[in-house]
């Protein structure tokens, strides 16, 4: 007799446990969460890339000073050396330029090795002198650069100035577009998850129609009934999202691990495995179940309340 007296926590008044998406819903939400994790990671990677390019290459200029005598003729105190010094002098005197550095020949050879092979040093190619320039925060606008280029080639005929900015603009645009696509995918995934939950909720409503009408007739408010469904939907969605996020974790770690060498500028394998996942993802992954729970709760509430409006 005392047995039924204690109402168990999470008492299932409407008998939803048996009719409302017990297996299918968490699995579908898990798939959505997995996709969301990938899309989110994509958005973050694209953002990182865009920043990287903008900060690095966006402010860079390359100045090439031809050496009429060829690389072999270059040596301390030669004409070429003074030409490069002159160019560097002009660059240093130009406002808006933060740093100039004449690349030593060995570094130049190193850079060219992938294209020219081991024999780069011995090949009798006339390599130009190269000065790497980093512009200050706001850089120089295009007309100033044009004037600078004219000034440089007057000082040392044949000198060219190459701004990386147009490339960076395109790459940045590409990165931003990728990012926008990733956000759109994330939004789409959320919308599909909401639709899946709405369909499951409607299925539960249809199967429990008589029960709901009876409970409504006994004086249950719309809020009471909607809350029963919303709690169940939120629980199932959180469960699904946890599964999906856990499934995405090894995939993301693997991808991050592959990307590590590019992010740390050639220091291959120096980053510890777990730290390779950007901190934003460590925050983003736990947010997935939370977001799924909110979507589940809100969608079920809306669906049930709209359905209940047919009752007096």
């Amino acid at each position, binding site marked *: 007799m005392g047995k039924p007296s204690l*109402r168990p926590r999470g008492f299932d008044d409407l*008998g939803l446990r048996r009719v409302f998406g017990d297996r299918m819903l968490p699995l579908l939400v898990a798939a959505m969460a997995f996709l969301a994790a990938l899309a989110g990671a994509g958005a973050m990677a694209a953002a990182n890339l865009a920043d990287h390019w903008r900060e690095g290459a966006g402010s860079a200029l390359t100045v090439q000073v031809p050496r009429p005598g060829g690389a072999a003729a270059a040596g301390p105190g030669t004409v070429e050396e003074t030409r490069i010094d002159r160019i560097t002098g002009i660059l240093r005197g130009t406002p808006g330029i933060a740093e100039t550095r004449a690349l030593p020949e060995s570094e130049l050879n190193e850079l060219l090795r992938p294209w020219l092979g081991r024999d780069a040093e011995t090949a009798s190619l006339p390599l130009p002198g190269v000065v790497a320039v980093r512009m200050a925060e706001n850089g120089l606008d295009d007309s100033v650069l044009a004037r600078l280029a004219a000034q440089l080639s007057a000082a040392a005929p044949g000198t060219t100035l190459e701004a990386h900015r147009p490339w960076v603009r395109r790459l940045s645009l590409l990165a931003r577009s990728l990012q926008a696509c990733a956000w759109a995918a994330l939004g789409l995934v959320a919308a599909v998850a909401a639709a899946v939950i709405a369909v499951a909720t409607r299925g539960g409503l249809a199967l429990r129609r008589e029960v709901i009408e009876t409970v409504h007739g006994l004086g249950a408010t719309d809020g009471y009934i909607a809350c029963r469904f919303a709690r169940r939907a939120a629980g199932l969605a959180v469960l699904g999202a946890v599964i999906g996020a856990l499934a995405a974790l090894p995939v993301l770690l693997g991808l991050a691990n592959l990307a590590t060498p590019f992010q740390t500028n050639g220091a291959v394998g120096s980053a510890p495995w777990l730290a390779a996942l950007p901190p934003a993802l460590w925050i983003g992954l736990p947010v997935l179940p939370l977001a799924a729970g909110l979507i589940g709760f809100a969608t079920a509430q809306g669906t049930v309340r709209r359905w209940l409006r047919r009752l007096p």
Partner: protein
Amino acid sequence: MVRLDEVGLRYGGTRGGPEILRDISFSIGPGGFRWLLGRSGAGKTSLLRLLSLAARPTRGTLIVLGADIGLVPRRALPPLRRRIGMVFQDFRLLPHLTAFDNVALPLRLAGRPEGQITVDATEMLRWVGLADKTGAWPAELSGGEQQRVAIARAVAGRPSLLLADEPTGNLDEGQAERLMQLLAELNRLGTTVVVATHNDALVERHPARAMVLEHGRLVEDG
């Protein structure tokens, strides 16, 4: 308590099918008792649906527990429903809840403390003679037992207005007699009671004011 003035009801809204109830006017004061009589299809269940706020009138004025049902906002209805007990012709027990939980449901909806719910629901089930069936599922109960659970559920919340639709349909004569004593007892305690039935013998044994429906019209009240 209850007052109807030229009330009409169509299923499917104002433009729905034919008018099932037409020009119904009557009133029942607090603590009143009424039989609701009429052939099958006369509209007894429909009238009880109006009184239990399961349907709103498509025309006329319906006042239940002091509220003008045609005018009050939808959210005002649940608290009113909780003050009305209804024994449905087809019981409407929740199949996934035990007899005890079915009886406890309106008390839980009303937010009563769980301790009091246990006492009241158990007492109600004892009162209808089902003390040994508290843990039974509706599907395990006979028609008469289900009807008695439905009665216990309707009465458990001590409603101000009790509506019963053919409540003796599945009861034997002794049980029907017991039910009538139970209803009379509640009525004496102040509950307004309306009982729809076509059990003439029962009405003869318990004379009270009767309303007679015929083809959706009230043809007799008194």
